[in-house]
């Protein structure tokens, strides 16, 4: 059983290297491709962590649809990210401190895969037991999603609908786009 944890540790380390590459890169197309690869490896990890439903949702929605969205948005946006003039010292330091605190707290978390962890003691056994008798679907995730917590899924649909309406309202073009509005920062740089 240690082998599946080893595979997990390996995959999550690949994800870390992809994320570090994301910090380094300044080209938008590399950013989009790296994000897609990140989602795909996350989907692989979900399979090794026994979450098959989550894995194919992540592979289709996370790695598929969001990549398409990024590519579609990319067509209208600048292709290069500009180097920032300001230092990024304060954000980096606060992230490192917060990450250190989280890692320190991780010693109190139960080890991965322990049957005695509190999360497995509460209501999950009831759902696994009741799925066959109450709903008659062997896939427990489906029965919880669509029946036990059906209102949650309904709320999710409302959220997606609201987001769609907001996107349509934002992208509606009423006034003509001001194409040649000069950038003051470039003007300032020219004057200096």
């Amino acid at each position: 059983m240690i082998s599946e944890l080893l595979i997990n540790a390996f995959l999550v380390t690949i994800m870390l290297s992809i994320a570090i590459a994301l910090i380094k890169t300044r080209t938008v197309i590399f950013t989009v491709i790296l994000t897609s690869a990140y989602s795909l490896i996350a989907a692989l990890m979900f399979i090794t962590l026994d979450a098959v439903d989550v894995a194919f949702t992540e592979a289709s929605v996370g790695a598929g649809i969001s990549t398409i969205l990024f590519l579609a948005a990319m067509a209208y946006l600048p292709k290069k990210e500009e180097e920032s003039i300001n230092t990024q010292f304060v954000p980096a330091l606060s992230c490192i401190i917060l990450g250190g605190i989280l890692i320190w707290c991780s010693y109190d978390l139960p080890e991965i895969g322990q049957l005695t962890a509190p999360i497995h003691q509460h209501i999950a056994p009831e759902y696994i037991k009741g799925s066959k008798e109450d709903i008659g679907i062997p896939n427990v995730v489906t029965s919880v999603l669509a029946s036990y917590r059906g209102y949650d899924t309904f709320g999710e649909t409302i959220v997606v609908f609201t987001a769609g309406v907001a996107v349509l309202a934002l992208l509606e073009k009423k006034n003509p786009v001001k194409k040649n509005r000069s950038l003051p920062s470039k003007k300032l740089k020219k004057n200096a």
Partner: protein
Amino acid sequence: MISSTIGIWNYWIVFCLMMIGLFLVIGRKNFLKKIVGLTIFQTSVFLLYITFGKIKGGTPPILNESINSIYSNPLPHVLILTAIVVGVATTALGLSLVLRINSEYGSIEEDDISAQDLVDYHDEIETGKSIDLKFKQ
């Protein structure tokens, strides 16, 4: 020793990933990069939840009477299924905001946009009348 390190290794890396996502959101000036950072953050939170639900030697929670086995916890899976779809909705909304900002300001760098706002503000003070054309239809 090795087994206990492997036992919490996932948590460490997931926390590192979260912090990288947070750094991309608060440390980078490019709005597209900020949204990529949000996606990274989201996916790492999903990983954390799914990691909690794992049981060693368990199978995916699909009932099978021929094998008498233990199933991994299905509840985090359900939560994360919802969160993935909502996450894509958030990404779409953020990207359309970025597109809108780009068509108004001609740039998606935070420095450029705040510089333009500053220039507009000074113009407003000098001419004594408000330049409010930007959001008028």
